[in-house]
């Protein structure tokens, strides 16, 4: 056992993969766990000590919005007056808290969302901060940590028979699986208008099937001669891929099934359409969808760029929340607005620098209080003044909502123990 725990090599990696395999997308025929049951999955959520606490397991789906570059909290969700104030004025909402003029449509759904104004971290460099926000762990040269979608898949099992459990939109999969097997890796959709890469309609055709069946026939001797687990895994991947190509759910990836009006509401840009695609995927049962929006690193021209980017985000986010709510999906779908860090309070008319000490995130749906503000920053937005929330705690909160066992450790192939949210506590007050 300790030998296996310390192992990071290919074979123990394979053993690890195997231990995880039953939670993986479509891998049903791998042999059961050999030796240890330490990582047997899916875990029984009811055995979790947090299970009785508010909000546990309410979120069946998660849409994780990632604003890369660093969203200026002061110019969006945490308006300030005085020197820190940016180009936009604060406006009131029916939920009682204020947002800025850059987010007029979000103002309209403020009563459905929960703003967290007391996020705090120490990392102010883009790549590292993005990594931390995505995994709750600092980036290291020796291990890669999983994103939330992979944790969910590990503990809860696959969310769908043919579709993947995690999808990431507008970005490659970037290690979403972390130290878990590649089967936990999110399926990347690089352009929501284009749908699934290499899935051209004809690839599910009879002709492909015929070729594939010839390949299987010719391959028979080889497969019989080498009843290897990795060979079998490939056989499964081919079967699953073909099944996916032929499944009716593949239509979920096709945005042309939506009305022009709704597509306009979300915004005719990659982020807007990505959010719409996310909603479609939630509807067919994909558990975790990450949607990326770039261009938030506003050192200069903040006013112009917030006008453009802000509008893009505002339309998409407000449309997504309203749409999910209208379809009755908001109570079971948690939308998280994340970024890398905030931006500095001092505003010289141009832009703002990186500011990890204090920033804002948003949660909406999935059992979270509606029209709520959690925590507060000080008068200038420089530091948290109330209920500071670490990135680990943010993850723990989402993990709790998803019904994950937060205290349970997973030993990575490199032999080190990890948990959802890096041992931080969930902020239970955000739950209704």
């Amino acid at each position, binding site marked *: 056992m*300790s030998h296996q*725990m*310390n*192992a*990071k*090599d*290919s*074979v*123990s990696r394979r053993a690890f993969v195997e231990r995880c395999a039953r939670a993986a*997308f479509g891998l049903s025929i791998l042999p059961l766990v*050999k*030796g240890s049951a330490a990582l047997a999955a899916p875990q029984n959520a009811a055995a979790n000590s947090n299970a009785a606490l508010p909000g546990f397991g309410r979120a069946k789906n998660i849409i994780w919005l990632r604003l890369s570059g660093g969203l200026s909290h002061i110019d969006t969700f945490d308006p300030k007056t005085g020197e820190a104030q940016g180009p936009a004025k604060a406006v009131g909402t029916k939920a009682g808290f204020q947002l800025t003029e850059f987010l007029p449509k979000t103002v309209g759904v403020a009563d459905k969302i929960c703003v967290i104004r007391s996020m705090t971290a120490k990392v102010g460099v883009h*790549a590292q901060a993005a990594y931390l926000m995505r995994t709750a762990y600092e980036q*290291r*040269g*020796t*291990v*890669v940590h999983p994103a939330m979608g992979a944790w969910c898949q590990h503990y809860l099992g696959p969310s769908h028979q043919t579709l993947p459990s995690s999808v990431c939109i507008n970005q*490659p999969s*970037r*290690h979403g699986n972390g130290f878990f*097997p*590649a*089967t936990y*890796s999110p*399926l*990347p959709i690089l352009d929501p208008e284009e749908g699934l*890469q*290499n*899935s*051209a309609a*004809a*690839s599910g*055709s009879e*002709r*492909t099937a*015929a*070729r*594939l069946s*010839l*390949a299987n026939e*010719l391959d028979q*001797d*080889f*497969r019989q001669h*080498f*009843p290897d*687990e*990795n*060979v079998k895994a*490939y*056989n499964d*991947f*081919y079967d*699953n*891929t073909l099944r*996916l*190509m032929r499944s009716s759910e593949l239509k979920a990836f096709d945005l042309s099934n939506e009305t022009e009006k709704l597509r306009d509401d979300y915004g005719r840009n990659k982020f807007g359409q990505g959010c719409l695609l996310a909603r479609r995927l939630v509807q067919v049962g994909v558990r975790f969808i990450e949607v990326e929006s770039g261009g938030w690193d506003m050192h200069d021209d903040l006013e112009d760029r917030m006008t453009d980017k802000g509008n893009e985000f505002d339309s998409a986010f407000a449309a997504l929340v309203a749409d999910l709510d209208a379809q009755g999906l908001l109570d079971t779908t948690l939308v998280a607005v994340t970024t890398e860090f905030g931006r500095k309070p001092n505003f010289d008319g141009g832009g703002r620098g990186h500011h990890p000490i204090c920033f804002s995130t948003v949660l909406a749906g999935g059992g979270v209080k509606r029209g709520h503000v959690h925590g507060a920053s000080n008068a200038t937005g420089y530091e948290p003044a109330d209920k500071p929330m670490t990135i680990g705690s943010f993850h723990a909160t989402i993990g709790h909502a998803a019904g994950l066992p937060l205290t349970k450790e997973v030993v990575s192939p*490199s032999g*080190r123990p990890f948990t959802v949210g890096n041992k931080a506590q969930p902020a239970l007050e955000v739950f209704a």
Partner: protein
Amino acid sequence: MKKQLLFRPLLVLSAFLLCFGPAQAQNRKNKVTNRVMQAQRRQRMQEMQRPQAQPQNQAGGNRRGNGSKNRRGRRDEATPTSARISAPVKQVLTVAPDALPLVQSTLKVADAAAKIDALVLERLGEAKQKPNALTSDEQFLRRVYLDAAGRIPTRDEVTDFLSNSAPDKRAQIIDALLLSQDYRSQSFNWLADMLRVKDRINKGGPTFTYQEWLKERITKNSPWNETVYKMMTAEGRLITNGAAGYLLRDPGMPLDNLSGTLTTFLGANVACAQCHDHPLAPWTQKQFYEMAAFFGDVDTSVVKGNGIAKRIIKQSDSFDEKDKKMLVALATVNASAVKIVPRKKLAFPKDYKYDNAKPGELVHPALFTWDESDKKSAAYNVDTNDPDKRRQAFATWLTNPDNPRFAVAIANRLWQKNFGLAVQEPISDLDDLNKASNPQLLVHLGAEMKRLNFDLREFQRVLFNSKTYQRQANITPDLSKGPYLFPGPLLRRMTAEQAWDSVLTLAAGSGLNYYQLKRVEALQPLVIAGDELSLKMIEDKAKSLKPQDLKGLGPNALNYETIDGKKAPPPRFVGMILARASELEQPSKESHFLRMFGESDREIADDSSREGGIPQVLMLMNGDVQRVIGNSDALALKSAALQPTKERQIESLYLSFLGRMPNASEKTKVLNALTQGLELPELTWVLFNTREFIFVQ
């Protein structure tokens, strides 16, 4: 519809084959000029055997003139540009023109291999296990090509080998492979995964000099201990000293870098000790810091090109905002460096929590030992007290042949690379050598490494010549039931690089080595002479800079030279650059075949993957690579199409893809499919999508 899309002959690819043409001419030239006697003799032997052994080659044409005459008319009608394409030239191994000769006698190699076999057999015997039967020639050839040359053999290479009746033909082909251009490419891929080679780290200067330095080390077959010594002790600017690229891999993070160094080169399981005493392994945090103290005066922090540019713009009349990009580039290219800051010293961290040192206290360098007796070894006979020579002291100890782990660690890694599993797993934890599946074998391999003076090529030559390597492969063992004792190597999925280079082989034959990445030269206009870099020097250089001088920096600035010394870019096909994995961007973009098939993103050492996934399978079924190998101008397909009968065509494709002849039942199945409308290009799809293709037996 779809079929047309997949297999429509494209002009681009016609051009592509033309582009690879000269490489084949070079092959023949090499046969004459190459001074490596052994390889020459081998090739002559193959030449002699060619006619009777390869009837199908007559249609393909052993001589370029021959074939092109037959083919010209038809090709003219089809596409004018491809009229110049002669019928496929025989595709055989290119011996690197400047390959240095192998040093061990054949007898000595056989001896050394037999010693390894004996140790393996002994351990198998103790466990009452039997070794596997020897591989067939077909299995052996494909395996050794993938391991030594990083690609599958061409059809001609297969038929040559199969028809060769020399009793020592396996030893011959091993030597030829190790002397080939292909060996270098393969070795680089292996190193790049291990050393996390990336074109750019954070916002630092490009690492092109480092990469070309590594390639040169491979070309010169430089001893491993010397290579590592140079990386540890490199000083100065990256643009003029490629070896500096190793320490600059973790800019401003010397502790992470050292952790990687100890793990990679010694198999010391220290990763945890960076932050706290290791709970299971012997290392304490104090020991880790004592090792790190050898690098206490080294500064690898990333240069703020942005800051430098801003300052120049502020203080100079000649530059403004629009020059910023150029100034940033100039600053980073020149300022990325391993600097020595004599007063800089390592202190224990603020949160140090053990009794044996205080937070903030200066750390005295000390070499760690695995065992009390280690201290007696010659490796520890270094002066660790000279404050100006600390790094040298560390490097001397690290790379000393008598270092308790250095030789074993690299030997174990090479074993893993070629057998699919190391003698001791994981390769990153060799703290207790008794945990090896076969401790005597591991110790012996370390001794062999020393005997061969860290010549990695000779070491692998011994491995490849062992019966152990040449036995049939096993499936993935269940290690919870006991150690794997190497009755044969393991069945492995190809690495991403092997798969990509094999695709190129199917498209371009042995001409795939024609294009070599040369990116350092294009950076030269940016280089500022001198050691100490000042703002003024950057400013002066910027004034003399022309826009085209920046071309060497762009993300697509993949400057190439052909092996015969011409400047020429490789052909592109549906956006892909058709050059070997070692001659592409490092690492490739995430959507590239290489990454989808498991190339490491180079963030973590040895992180390449052999796992599948749905996006990957979608790519294998519908991706652009299919269009490359299914194109009528792709060499494997083109050579098959030239065969006179359907049966011969099938055989030709089987040889190209799987390195073997189809058996009767397979032939029947394919013939039936062809009768029912399957087209020959589709057979490339079918063979490519078998497990037999992507797995190495």
